């Protein structure tokens, strides 16, 4: 069952913080790629998580790195239309 937007964002944020324990929060415009919160391999797992949270599958060929660059971008790309 997909999460609503607020809960999905909270779940996503919690998942990201688990990957980077030295962070206590994730600002909306923190570059998740440059700060190594996400890398190529974790992006696959992250997309998997997003699909579970939103109930929507995504064709990886329709996506770009910038879609995952910040929490703001992630919310806009994957959560806003729900």
């Amino acid at each position: 069952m997909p999460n609503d937007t607020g809960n999905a964002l909270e779940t996503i944020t919690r998942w990201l913080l688990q990957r980077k324990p030295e962070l206590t929060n994730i600002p909306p415009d923190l570059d998740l790629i440059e700060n190594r919160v996400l890398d190529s391999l974790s992006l696959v797992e992250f997309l998997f998580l997003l699909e579970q949270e939103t109930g929507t599958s995504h064709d990886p060929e329709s996506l770009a790195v910038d879609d995952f660059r910040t929490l703001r971008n992630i919310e806009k790309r994957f959560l806003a239309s729900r």
Partner: protein
Amino acid sequence: MRDRIGVDIVSVARVQALLDLHGGELARRLLTKRELRDSTGVQGLLAHSVAGRVAAKEAVFKLFHEPAALLPWTHIAVVRGPSGAPVVRLTGRALTLAEESRLGPVSLSTSHDEGYAIAFATAALLPGSRSDG
């Protein structure tokens, strides 16, 4: 003519943790059907084999110099050649990226030790390719 190089190192334990958590569903997003077969042992998916392929695909992807693109995992296949050395097969998006970069054939070498898999990939830039740093 300059060559391009790519290298990557992957923790086998990290891959094992992913396989334990997500099993075949995640592996199917990373590996082709043949790679899944080649990476499966008696007790299921072999983390060291998957890790080696993950490192190899990352190393090959770095040859394309396309930081804005997502790694097209299942369009970069790593199979064992007749000599036993790994061979790279590009399809779909990966093939397009290689062609746009004007890359020649990709050479690949992999190794495993102390819980890590490492891969090193090279390819020559063909005539007509745009030069970059």
